[in-house]
């Protein structure tokens, strides 16, 4: 059975999915290294030919936006 609560990235490390947020038509996936919670990154989920992929963000502005919505969502946690 596939465990999609974590994913292996191109650095061969396992990352937990800590959140998924839909914004402006994009689904942002927030990831945290299983072995080091300080090691985080954000990817975007896209659909191509009925297949699902994770890709990087396109610009610094998009990174800022993705961080803002994440921090805002969890600001009262």
């Amino acid at each position, binding site marked *: 059975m596939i465990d999609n609560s974590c994913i292996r990235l191109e650095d061969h490390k396992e990352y*937990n999915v800590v959140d998924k947020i839909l914004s402006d038509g994009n689904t942002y996936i927030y990831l945290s290294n299983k072995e080091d919670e*300080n090691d*985080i990154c954000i990817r975007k989920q896209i659909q191509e030919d009925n297949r699902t992929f994770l890709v990087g963000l396109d610009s610094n502005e998009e*990174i800022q936006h993705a961080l803002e919505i994440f921090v805002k969502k969890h600001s009262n946690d």
Partner: protein
Amino acid sequence: MKEELDLTFLKMVQEHYQKVKSELNDQLVDEFYEKSLSSKKIEVHGELYVGKNVIMKGIGQVVGIASGILLIIMLGKAANTADLMDRYYNILSQQAQQELTQKEFAYYQDNKPNVIEAYHDYQEKEEELKQTGNYNSLGDNIDNDSQATYSKGDFLVPTNIQEDALRMAVSEQIQEYKGKR
């Protein structure tokens, strides 16, 4: 004088940015950018979800790191502006010395643009360059093979478009000084 005060303030912003970045750990911020920007496409089979262990443990640490990086981005933008204006005045001074006559140079020394004016001129040029389609979303010249390090979260290294816009703004300013006495 006002220009010097403006630059002093901007330099304070630069120093603050550097301090905050190093407190969060430069490497951590750089690696975050490396992994989040334009990375390899990875296929996912099925729906991604937040697992029980993450829900139970909470993500306070992750939110803290994300908040720190966001703060750095905001400070970084201000620091980037400070650095750009620093570069503007340095390039302006160099070109003034190289291209202006003695009288024109004297006029330049008494009529330097203040930081607001200089930044406005720079922004106009940056916008013109964006319209050319010669730069990607990270500010790299698409004909240039070397990637700007700005994309890795270092706001104090100008992108290709920023550097080119600065030089255009300075050249235009130098032309205004020519013929002036």
